[in-house]
């Protein structure tokens, strides 16, 4: 029972209270770059969720069975970057062969994820929080879902911004940054959320 509550707490925290984008400020580059249209934002969000879940599992295993036995905890960052880069490459090849439709849907976004700091962030946070395997995977997937939620909400707002009447020199990026800031403020409202 405790375990379930623990997982629920991780889920809520990853999606709302400690949202990767709005309260941890990880993965900002794709968040700002791929959020002009809701369609592409959904594609990017799903791709990130997918990779974050898988990366959490693999990096947990790498940490547990390779880094810890050799007492190389301080090499985590380097090792994880290596793991994530290789993983994304592998996923791309695998999808292209076995699921061409999913590959064409995610295709453009997959290589971009290699440089997404949210993926590296989730791997490092898993270790920092001493999560076990299941907790790591749950944190990875729900963290990805939090990213998906954030980027889809943001893209929806940006689509509507076209119709807003704001000063000309705020057009494009400035107004997007202001929007992101206001959304982060709104998400701060979740920080008091406690499950028990």
């Amino acid at each position, binding site marked *: 029972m405790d375990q379930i509550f623990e997982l629920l707490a991780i889920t809520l925290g990853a999606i709302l209270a400690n949202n990767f984008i709005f309260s941890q400020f990880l993965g900002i580059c794709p968040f700002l770059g791929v959020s002009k249209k809701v369609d592409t934002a959904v594609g990017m969000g799903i791709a990130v969720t997918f990779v974050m879940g898988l990366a959490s599992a693999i990096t947990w295993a790498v940490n547990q069975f390779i*880094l810890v036995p050799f007492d*190389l905890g301080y090499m985590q960052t380097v090792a994880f970057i*290596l793991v994530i880069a290789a993983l994304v490459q592998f996923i791309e*090849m695998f999808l292209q062969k076995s699921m061409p439709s999913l590959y064409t849907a995610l295709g453009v976004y997959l290589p971009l994820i290699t440089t997404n700091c949210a993926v590296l962030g989730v791997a490092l946070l898993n270790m920092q929080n001493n999560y076990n395997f299941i907790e790591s995977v749950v944190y990875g997937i729900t963290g990805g879902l939090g990213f998906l939620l954030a980027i889809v909400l943001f893209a929806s707002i940006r689509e509507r911004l076209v*119709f807003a009447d704001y000063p000309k020199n705020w057009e494009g990026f400035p107004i997007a940054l202001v929007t992101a800031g206001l959304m982060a403020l709104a998400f701060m409202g979740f920080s008091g959320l406690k499950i028990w």
Partner: protein
Amino acid sequence: MMNVIYAILVLGILGAVFGLVLAVASKIFEVKKDPREEAVLSHLAGANCGGCGFPGCAGCAAAIVAGDAPVNACAPAGAENAAAIAEIMGQAAPTGERQVAFVRCNGGVNAKKRFEYRGVQDCISATKVAAGPLDCAFGCLGFGSCVNACQFGAMSIGPNGSAVVDPDKCTNCGACMTACPRHLITSVPASKKVHVACANQDKGKAAMSVCANSCIGCGLCQKECKKDAIHVVNGVAVIDYEKCVGCKLCTKVCPRDAILPAATAEEKEKYKAIKKAQAEKAAAAKKAAEEAAAASAQ
């Protein structure tokens, strides 16, 4: 010291293993891709404008290789690249000259407005409000949906309030044509300079009352054309670009300035005077011929 060696060894082995796995995976998961696809892709515009109707340039390249799209499917790439793609695909290079977009409306401020539209500055939104602010059901609204759709900066709202195309920048990708809710934008040959800038199909009186620059289908241009290149079809003049030689006679007789480039009043007067002189001369010649005939009969 041992720490450093361990670190180098472990990470080195880790990297090597990943490299090996990826190398093996690339063989296992190899997808046979047509090498022509990449070659074709390198000759496309690379703007991902979507004008061809395929998802991005890669999609267009795949369609061309699969034979689902013609070799000149990418309009922005131009004839040169189309020829290169044709060579890759083993086909003859397509002929046909460069086409550019043209807005078939010259109304702008000369078109009568039924009400002042203050909503979202977008043509599609504007047409949703009581069928748009213009009296003319065919005219350019001038809110610039086509300007926003253009990836190449070729569209702008002209000085008189209707959209105009910069033919030098236009790649004929077709994005503006789909963006225009009134379907006013068509492709015309880039070398032709005379165009009918009106799409109003209403009867003469109705067309005349809604806009100062509308084509009323009077047919003066049709009568004037020496090459049989302009005809009134469905109440609006249409130029046959295969026959048009660009003499601009039609622009000089158009009473509504609906044919571009519009002739100035001075040019029109001059042309009228020339015509009058010609008519007088012809009449005089006819009269002389008649008199001569009458004289010889006697």
